[in-house]
């Protein structure tokens, strides 16, 4: 009996601690959603912290006046979507090349590509900026997309996934006369759905939140991705009501939230897989 009470107390304490954490993690979200409906003075009024305001529509018009927010959302979506599709394609192809064939220098090349992951993309921004301005690709979405493609993480992930794919299957298809490309697209790739989903989610979320690269490369407000656009509003000399600013933050978060709710399980698994880098 005494033992049981002790366990109960322990589990009660565990629940309390977790509840505190949940409140701490969720509160800023709740506060942001509520603040999007507040007037400027209500945002800083404690009484309103847990109350719905009535200024949502005005905030929306204020936000539209300050930013072409729908253009910005489209930019973010375009960049993240195209980037994700390209990453899935070239990384799975490279992963296939590195896992299903033997060739001279394969392992050395793979290590070189992995070692390049140690260099953060911010470090390359100056040369990339010069390079893109020579290629006439400053202020273009393609600069952002291309500069993100050399990341080796996806190649690593796809290679790992494909190493465990039975070679006999590929070999017997070869004997039946299937070409290499056909093997890849019709036999191997359809079996790589878990790895592709993980990589896709990870790439999309990372590119959606990408700030440094678009900040450096873009200079037309219409082309700005959402993070760059919102950071513009948060400049100290920019006069905007805070409710509108919070509405902007909501609009940046909501698409990812929807994405998360659809792919919830894959999402966390993808993040876990993403963590296991080299």
């Amino acid at each position, binding site marked *: 009996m005494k033992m049981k009470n002790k366990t109960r107390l322990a589990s009660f304490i565990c629940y309390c601690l977790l509840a505190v954490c949940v409140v701490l993690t969720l509160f800023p979200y709740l506060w942001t959603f509520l603040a999007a409906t507040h007037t400027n003075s209500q945002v800083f009024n404690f009484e309103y912290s847990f109350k719905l305001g009535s200024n949502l529509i005005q905030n929306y018009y204020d936000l539209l006046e300050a930013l072409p927010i729908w253009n910005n959302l489209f930019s973010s979506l375009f960049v993240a979507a195209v980037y994700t599709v390209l990453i899935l394609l070239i990384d799975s192809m490279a992963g296939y090349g590195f896992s299903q*064939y033997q060739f001279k220098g394969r392992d050395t090349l793979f290590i070189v590509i992995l070692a390049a992951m140690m260099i953060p993309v911010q470090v390359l921004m100056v040369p990339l900026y010069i*390079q893109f301005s020579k290629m006439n690709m400053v202020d273009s979405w393609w600069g952002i997309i291309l500069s993100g493609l050399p990341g080796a993480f996806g190649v690593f992930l796809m290679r790992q996934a494909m190493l465990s794919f039975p070679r006999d299957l590929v070999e017997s298809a070869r004997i039946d006369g299937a070409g290499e490309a056909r093997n890849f697209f019709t036999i191997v790739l359809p079996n790589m759905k878990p790895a592709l989903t993980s990589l896709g989610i990870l790439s999309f979320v990372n590119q959606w939140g990408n700030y440094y690269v678009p900040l450096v490369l873009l200079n037309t407000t219409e082309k700005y991705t959402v993070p760059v656009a919102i950071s513009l509003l948060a400049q100290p000399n920019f006069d905007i009501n805070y409710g509108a600013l919070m509405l902007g933050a909501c609009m940046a978060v909501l698409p990812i939230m929807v994405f998360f709710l659809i792919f919830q399980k894959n999402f966390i698994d993808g993040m876990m897989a993403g963590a296991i880098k080299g």
Partner: protein
Amino acid sequence: MSYRLKMKIAPWCFIAPFFIVFLIFAVYPVIYSVILSFGTYKGGQVSLSGLRNYSFLLSDKSFFQAILNTFKIGLIQVPVMIFLAIFLACLMNSRLIKGKGFFRMAIFIPVLIDAVSYSVIFSLLFNDKGFINSMIARMGLIPQSWYTNAGLATMMIVIAQTWKWTGYNMIIILSGLQNIPGELYEAAAIDGAGRIQQFFRITIPLLRNMILMVLVTSVNGAVQMFTEPNIITHGGPTGSTTTVMFYLYNMGFKNFNFGIACAGSYVVVAIVVLLTIVQLQAGKEKD
């Protein structure tokens, strides 16, 4: 085409798209920026100037200050976050807790928000008249001026980063915990090991690789921190939250000193590589 020739060409065809992109947007810029770090950029041309950029950086007080600030933030933030993450992961792994899916999701949710939006939100929460100060006032304490006090501004960034990344690290450590077989604990319990002893003798050693990985990625993240100081504190007050990346951004894209920015970024790469090697060495199994 013969079979052997085909098997020789095929892998290169598959690797080619990635490899070409890698050459143009990774290898070439690395080489270019190494050269540029020894020169200046004017009118589309690089003119070499020897070690001038590096000697400028080494004698620039604000660069040292930026490195120091980065270490200060990282030295507080990374340990706090990792302890919290281990603690939460153990809680979540406990048999006493039901509804793990919900808790896992709720604690993971800060990972989803992009760095700019959460920085903006935290900057409003910590505003002089903002929610945090109101809470402090309600509790009968004195509201603080988070933006004008160097120590508090650093704390603000530490709190924001910890909020965003603890859940992510918790998920990784939790996946490590779930791989530890339960029989180990049962055997230890039979041998008379208490909970605390089990934690230090079983849990921590078996989590070694997971913790090491979390540590390396968190330290690298801390060294590369840019968004939070850029948006929450603008590097202030008086440069006390200027991180290395913030310094380099201003050097490169506000002052357009490309050469110095490149040299500085190689100092950062050296720091990242050095720290990673030190951590991997320290984390190696002793036997």
